[in-house]
């Protein structure tokens, strides 16, 4: 039994009086690939921000190695959902990756051979060396994702958080990103927590699922969590899980469509 790298214990978040997350608990072990799955607006981004310390919790605790995460800590890497980058931004791809090493320090970085080699290694690891000298703003969404993964991994974090990295990507870029992540997670022993509204591209690589809906989370293997009863309790209404052509579709009934009230009443016991 390996010790937990990250542990969320009964985390709750309120934003502007609205309850976004309630009693969310799960843990991540080193090297594990966890999918944070749920519909848009379910609180996946909020949950990632809680883990990063960017979003204060209204209840519960977030523990890294069993204790609260210190500020200026490099053990968690983060790839946000969307970068608002102007094409004129003067940062080249290799500058962006290099900022992953020491962008949080004072002063300017002096060029060094060791730094160049490390940046080149990371670019090669994510398959981004072809556009190493392009400006970050000139790249496509999939290319930017690869660069930001290199940026996040260069400081050798033990946990990598990615917010919807597959959103708005074409299928081949999507597969490219997933295979890069799965390989790096194994090779470097990095635990990955990746949010997505579609779990299908992740099925081959996910060790576990944290399914978020209705402000709560269900945790377990894909087979345990992606079940009509489990998801119906989360959503608070009837949910069908349809398996077709090897893909999984989660279909929630419209609100007020059936015995939603009865389901909601025993909804507290989801684990």
């Amino acid at each position, binding site marked *: 039994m390996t010790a937990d790298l990250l542990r969320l214990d009964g985390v709750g978040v309120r934003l502007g009086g609205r309850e976004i997350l309630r009693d969310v608990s799960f843990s991540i072990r080193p090297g594990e690939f966890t999918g944070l799955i749920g519909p848009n607006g379910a609180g996946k981004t909020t949950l990632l*921000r809680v883990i*990063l*310390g*960017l979003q204060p919790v209204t209840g519960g605790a977030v523990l890294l190695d069993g204790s609260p995460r210190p*500020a*200026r*800590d*490099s053990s*968690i890497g*983060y790839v*946000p959902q969307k*970068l*608002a*980058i*102007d094409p*004129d*931004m*003067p*940062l*080249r791809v290799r*500058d*962006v990756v290099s*900022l992953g090493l*020491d*962008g*949080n*320090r*004072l*002063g*300017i*970085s002096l060029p060094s051979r060791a730094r160049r080699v490390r940046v080149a290694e990371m670019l*090669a*690891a*994510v*398959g981004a*060396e*072809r*556009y190493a*000298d*392009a*400006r*970050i703003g*000139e*790249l*496509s969404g*999939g*290319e930017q994702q*690869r660069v930001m993964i290199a*940026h*996040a991994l260069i400081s050798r974090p033990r946990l990598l958080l990615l917010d919807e990295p597959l959103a708005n990507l*074409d299928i*081949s*870029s999507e*597969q*490219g990103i997933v*295979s*890069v992540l799965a*390989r790096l997670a194994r*090779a470097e022993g990095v635990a990955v927590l990746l949010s997505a509204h579609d779990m299908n591209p992740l099925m081959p690589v996910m060790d576990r699922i944290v399914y978020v809906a209705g402000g709560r989370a269900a945790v377990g293997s894909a087979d345990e969590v992606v079940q009509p009863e489990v998801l119906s309790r989360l959503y608070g209404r009837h949910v069908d899980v349809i398996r077709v052509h090897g893909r999984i579709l989660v279909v929630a009934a419209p609100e007020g469509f059936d015995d939603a009230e009865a389901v909601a009443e025993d909804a507290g016991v989801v684990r």
Partner: protein
Amino acid sequence: MGHLLRSVFEPGFFGSGPVHVAFAVGTVIAVTSAVVGVFTVTRGQSFAGHSLADIATTGGSGAFLIGINQFWGYLAFGAGAAAFMEMIGVQRRRGRDVATGVVLGAALGLAALFLYLGTQESSTTGASFTILFGSMFVLTPSTVPTLIVSALLALATVLMLARMLLLSSLSPDIAAARGVPVRAVGAAFLMALAVSVALSAVIIGAVLSTALLIGPAATALRVVKGPVRAAATAAGIGVLATWLGILLAYDSFYWPPAGRGWPVSFFVVALIVGSYLVTYLRPRQRQVTTQESPDPEHACSVA
């Protein structure tokens, strides 16, 4: 050769006290403005920079009215406005333009009033000209050390915060997650911006100071990649434009009709704008291969 040199450098150029002062102060301020400018453009705060310049006009005209050195007026109003903008939401992209616009309108109205009162009182129309369009040749020698020290402080601040500023522009969330005090860093940068605007207001005038701030940076960002090279190129362009501007302004005194020198600010700004326009003559470099690799194996095979 000697004749050619004499026609480039008109009589007395190298012996002139005001020219020496203009060179020293102009160079330091041009470097600071250009480097600060690169970060201003990178952070998408060009409009804030321009507004600080207009607000500095108010400070400069106010300082003239009460009889103190204009630099202090530029600085006080610029810094005050920067603090106000930061307070009412400059850290939010959407709030930024609105907040800046509100401050700007109020300040320009005041500037009009101060300039009017100033000229009524002392009947020196030259003062409003100096405040609006500046002149490197009429710098008060006693302020020179202050100007140079302020410029070096602003430059040092921005260089100290360089990596944090870049990371914050890339993604404020990543920066915050890595422990960068994003808001404090942004506020410190805005102050350095206000100082550098006040400085360029002294040498080329409050209204034109954005040219020295944004112009070299914009040109550099069009021709080179990478933050270090961009800053170095911008500084080079700013310094060259300043030096050539000083030379041309000095020489223009001997141009026909002789005896009426042209303003140095005109030459500096014209050279900066000219260099920016030149970058449009050559097609902008684009990355040739911006297609995502269709083969996911490619990524694995190179690792």
